[in-house]
């Protein structure tokens, strides 16, 4: 494999001089303008197929309530009774999900950011072991964690509690947050931190007033994803709650569809409301995802 790589590299350098000039119309070529728009049309077609379920969710959420046999293909007469039902029946669950997700973001960042700093900047003994453990943790099935946590939570009285769910749900976010923040901090100029340390700043000071502001974008990216992971959590909501006291919206939807459904518009309205964070992330986080990957090079 290495030999092919070497030859490839040689040929790449050999042609790189003239390569730019004869950037032919093949593969990544610049065909005629009309052909390019043809590809756009094709891409929109693929996108339409892939996003049809999302459209259908929004369409069905706007249909009138009750036992309409057929959902019409277009929401020509949008009806918001589905949303009214959704808010009145699932509003509390949405708030529960929001509280748990925000709590999980705070906890995850508080744990992950210092850890990422230690892994990226200090040459801590055992860093490799920690990193390896994080990678392996991704292979552990959630049901195994839930099975053991249920018994422990039962003893500790953490079942049906917001703190219990925040702690458990952070298992989705913390390993990911450590990896993403660490990747960013790897690119952070060490000289800035060392300068602060020489000026007499303690470790905590240097971390809080230099490292955290510098890695703001990666913290936001990790926070957004952690929020989404926790918001989407279903397994821990399902296994670590036994009463109606604390009920995230994912579990609310599951209970809707667990029985025979005769009012799809309110189920779909709830589904739309539960999708809002994902849509916000897709629109807003573009910048931060890009910032997270390229920001490392900025001095």
């Amino acid at each position, binding site marked *: 494999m290495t030999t*092919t790589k070497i030859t490839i590299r040689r*040929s*790449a350098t050999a*042609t790189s001089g003239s390569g730019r000039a*004869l950037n*032919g119309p*093949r*593969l*990544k*070529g610049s065909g005629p303008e009309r052909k*390019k*728009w043809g590809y*756009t049309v094709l*891409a929109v077609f693929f*996108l339409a197929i*892939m*996003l049809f*379920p999302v459209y259908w969710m929004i369409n069905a959420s706007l249909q009138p309530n009750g036992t309409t046999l057929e*959902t019409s293909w277009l929401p020509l007469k949008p009806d918001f009774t589905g949303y009214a039902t959704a808010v009145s029946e699932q509003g509390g669950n949405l708030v529960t999900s929001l509280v748990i997700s925000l709590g999980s973001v705070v906890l995850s960042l508080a*744990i992950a950011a*210092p*850890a990422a*700093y*230690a892994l*990226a900047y200090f*040459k*801590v*003994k055992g*860093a490799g072991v*920690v*990193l390896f*453990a994080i990678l392996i943790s*991704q*292979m552990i*099935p*959630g*049901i*195994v*964690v839930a099975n*053991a946590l*249920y018994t422990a939570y039962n003893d500790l009285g953490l079942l049906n509690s917001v703190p219990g769910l925040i*702690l458990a749900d952070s298992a989705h976010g*913390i390993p990911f947050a450590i*990896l993403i923040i660490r*990747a960013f901090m*790897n690119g952070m100029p*060490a000289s800035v931190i060392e300068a602060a340390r020489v000026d007499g700043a303690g*470790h905590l000071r240097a971390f809080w007033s230099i490292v955290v502001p510098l890695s703001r974008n990666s913290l936001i990216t990790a926070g957004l994803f952690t929020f*989404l992971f926790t918001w*989407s959590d*279903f397994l821990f909501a399902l*296994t670590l709650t036994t009463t109606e006291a604390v009920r995230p919206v994912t579990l609310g*939807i*599951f209970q809707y*569809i667990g029985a025979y459904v005769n009012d*799809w518009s309110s189920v*779909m309205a709830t589904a739309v409301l*539960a*999708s809002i964070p994902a849509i916000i992330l*897709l629109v807003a986080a573009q910048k931060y995802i890009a910032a997270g990957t390229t920001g490392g090079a900025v001095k």
Partner: protein
Amino acid sequence: MSLTTDLAQAKSRANIRAKARAKSGSETTPAGEASPSPRSRRRKHRERIYQWLFLVPAVIYMALFFGYPVVKNIVMSFQDYTTATFFTGEAPWVGLANYAKVLSSSLFSTSLVNTALFTLGSIAGQFVIGLALAIFFQRKFPLNGILRSLLLLPWLLPLIVSSAVWRWILDKDSGALNRFLGGLHIVDTGIPWLTSTSLALIAVVGVNIWIGIPFNLTILYGGLQEIPDELYEAGSLDGATGWKAFRHITWPMLRPVVSVVLVLGVVYTLKVLDIILGLTNGGPANSTQTIATQSYDLSFHEFKFGEGAALGNVLVVISLVFAVLYLRASRRSVDE
């Protein structure tokens, strides 16, 4: 993706940082470097402890929420752990009885076959469609970036939301799919996608493919972008275009990324629970029951936590086999 690039980065950065530190270290504490006096050694020691403190919360968390469950699950799998345990606090040691019972039940073979079919079907579909779309998006055309990022949406939606939407689309009587097929006169009567024992697994696999396409597309697209243009230019001089270019240039260059995508896909698909519970709840007649759903069922419906734990451990072992494959694959891609 982040996992693999991470490993690669870690290696190269470690060297750079080691050099940088060696330099700055000799600047700040020249005396300490030259002849380690007891005082500077003590200071170094204290410095180490401070550095470790940054890592401690994460280590504790990982130990409590990943380490402890794994160990506890192994212990539970050798115990008769039921609801009674919560009251009496007693979980009699039963040795391998849980494993024997779980592995010999007729449902286990069903679940095992379903898990294999679900995983293979999902991965094959996600990968082929994801790769095809990734190659398509290599072309330069207007709005490419926006359209590609919008394709991520199915992946970002909560799985239970996707399950609910697909439940409605695949509904036998008034679901969108059957109405569409009926409108084209492909079928006369509604197809019971989720309620027929022969179709339910296919439908569940189909939905999971839909969810997994964006992930495969994103990572494979990233891998394709890494292949230098010059290779294709050199190839085209030798007459390698189209399929030939794909076979002799794209595929060999993409191989490391492909192996990572496939193994990660398998590990993630093996533990899928939300989608199956949301769509079919393992039914009809266990036709979509997998090892993960059956483990959930044993623990949280039949309250046989010991047996649920045993089955969960079987799943861990299967995942670990692929984890080893993954680590070998990612190490190879780092070495290359």
